[in-house]
C-alpha cells in the first residue's frame, strides 16, 4: 500500500469534510455584489470568489468569479500562485486556476462580502487562472472536484444567459462541417422533426449548444465545453456522425456549414460530447 504523503492526507481530510454535495447556507446580512470584491461562499469548508467581471444583462447581472480556497497545500501549484492573507479573519487563501459565472441573486444570498481588491490584483488573479494548467496529480484531482461541485451553479447561470453571452472571451476554434455530413442530416429524420417548442439553445450533460442564424454564413452552431476538458481528446457526434474528434484547445467551438433544418431542437438534443479514450 502506498505510503501517504502530506498532500494525500490533506486531500483525504478535505474529502471527508466536504462530502459529495455542496451544502450552502444563506447569509443574514445581504450585500449586493460589485466588481473587484472578495466574497465568501457560506459552505464548509468555505469557497471564495474574486469578482472579476460584470456582464450587464436585461434584469439580473451575471458575474465572472475567480475561485480561491483555504486548502493551501492542494491549491498551491507553483511560486506564482497568488496568495491572499486575511489577518482579521486569521485566514490564508490561494487562488485556483479556474473561474465560474454566478448570478447576482446567488452572490447576494449565499456569499459574504469580505473586502475589496484593487484592479491590478484582480488582473493578476485573472491572468493566473487563464495561464496556468491544471496538473494531473492529486492537486488537479482536487481542483476538478471543486469544479464539479460548482458546476451546477455555474452552468445554470450560463445557460440562462447563453444567448446573450456575446462577450464570452474565449477565442473559439472554428470548424466547417463537410458537405457530406451536411447533406446527410438534411435528408435524415431531422429534416422532419418538429418539437413542441422550438428552441435554439440546448444544455447537454456536459455542454451548452446554441444555434444562430447568420445571413452571410447560414446557421452556426456554438458549443461551450467544460474547462477541465481542455487538452483532452474529445469526440463530438450528432447521432452516429462525428462532427469533431481531437484535442480540445478552447472551450468554445464553432461549426459552420450546418444542415439547413426547419427546427434544430432534436438535432441539438442528439449532440453527444465524450472524452475519447
Amino acid at each position: 500500500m502506498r505510503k501517504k504523503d502530506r498532500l494525500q492526507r490533506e486531500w483525504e481530510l478535505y474529502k471527508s469534510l466536504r462530502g459529495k454535495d455542496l451544502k450552502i447556507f444563506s447569509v443574514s446580512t445581504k450585500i449586493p455584489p460589485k466588481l473587484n470584491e472578495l466574497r465568501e461562499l457560506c459552505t464548509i469548508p468555505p469557497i471564495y470568489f474574486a469578482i472579476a467581471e460584470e456582464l450587464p444583462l436585461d434584469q439580473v447581472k451575471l458575474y465572472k468569479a475567480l475561485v480561491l480556497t483555504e486548502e493551501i497545500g492542494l491549491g498551491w501549484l507553483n511560486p506564482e500562485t497568488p496568495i491572499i492573507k486575511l489577518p482579521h479573519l486569521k485566514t490564508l487563501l490561494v487562488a485556483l486556476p479556474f473561474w465560474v459565472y454566478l448570478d447576482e441573486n446567488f452572490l447576494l444570498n449565499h456569499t459574504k462580502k469580505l473586502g475589496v481588491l484593487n484592479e491590478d490584483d484582480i488582473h493578476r488573479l485573472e491572468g493566473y487562472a487563464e495561464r496556468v494548467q491544471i496538473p494531473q496529480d492529486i492537486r488537479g484531482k482536487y481542483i476538478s472536484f471543486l469544479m464539479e461541485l460548482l458546476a451546477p451553479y455555474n452552468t445554470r447561470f450560463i445557460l440562462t444567459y447563453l444567448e446573450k453571452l456575446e462577450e464570452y472571451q474565449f477565442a473559439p476554434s472554428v470548424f466547417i462541417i463537410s458537405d457530406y455530413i451536411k447533406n446527410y442530416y438534411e435528408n435524415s429524420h431531422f429534416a422532419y422533426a418538429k418539437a413542441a417548442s422550438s428552441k435554439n439553445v440546448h444544455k447537454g450533460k456536459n455542454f451548452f449548444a446554441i444555434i444562430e442564424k447568420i445571413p452571410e454564413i447560414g446557421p452556426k452552431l456554438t458549443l461551450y465545453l467544460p474547462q477541465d476538458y481542455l487538452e483532452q481528446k474529445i469526440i463530438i457526434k450528432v447521432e452516429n456522425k462525428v462532427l469533431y474528434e481531437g484535442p480540445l484547445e478552447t472551450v468554445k467551438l464553432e461549426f459552420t456549414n450546418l444542415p439547413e433544418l426547419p427546427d434544430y431542437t432534436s438535432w441539438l438534443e442528439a449532440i453527444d460530447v465524450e472524452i475519447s479514450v
Partner: protein
Amino acid sequence: MRNYKQIIEKLLNNQISSKEYQIFLKDLKRIFKQALKVYFTSNIEKLFHKYFGPDYLEVLASEFIFKIVSKKESFLNLSFINEKYLLTTAINIIYLYLSSEFKLVEKEVNLNDLSLTQEEDKEQEIRVEGLLPPVFVNFLEDSALNHLVLSLKEKLTKKELETLCWYVNKAYKQNPKEVKASADTLYKRWERLKPKLKKIVGEEVLEGTSADKIFYAIKSEICDKYS
C-alpha cells in the same frame, strides 16, 4: 463523532464558563499538535517553538478563538461542528503563520477582551501578496515533490527504479549501487525509461522547481534508501 457546536455557541454567546473555556483551549492545543505532526513537519513545529516559545500551542489556540469570533456567523450556521473542521481550520492558521514568517501574532486572547458583536470593515482593501517567505514556498514545494517521488515509487518497476537511481547517482558523481548490468545495457534502459519518466514528471507539473531539486528528492527519498 464529537460535536463542538454547543461549546462554540456558548463561546459566541458569551455564556462559556472559565472551566469550559480552558477545556476547549486544551482541545484546540491537541488539534494543533496533531495538525503539525500529521500535515506539517517536525522542523515547522520547531519554528513555532523558536518564535513563540514553549507555549506556542497556546498562542495558536488563542488565534483559533479569535478566528471563531471573527467568523461568528459561519460557525453559528453549522448544525454540527466536528473535529475535522477544526483540524482543517487549524491547518490554515498554521499556513497563515508560515506565509507571514510568524509576524502576525496578536496579544494573547483574553475572554473578556473579545468583542463578540464587532462588525468587520467590509470596505477594507485586500491585497494579493507579493514576495512570499522561503519557509512557506519551500514547504509547499517539498510537499509537491514528496508527492511526486511517491508517485514515481508507485508507478515505476523495480528495474526502472534501479535504472533511475543509477542515472541519478551518476549525475551526483557518486558510486552507484552494484547493478548487475553493463553500462551499455543501463544506457539503453535509461533511454527507454525517459519517456515514461517524462510522462509522470510532466503530469505532475512542478513549475519553478528545478530539475536539481527533483533529482535531489529522488536521490534522498528513493535511491539512498535502496542502497
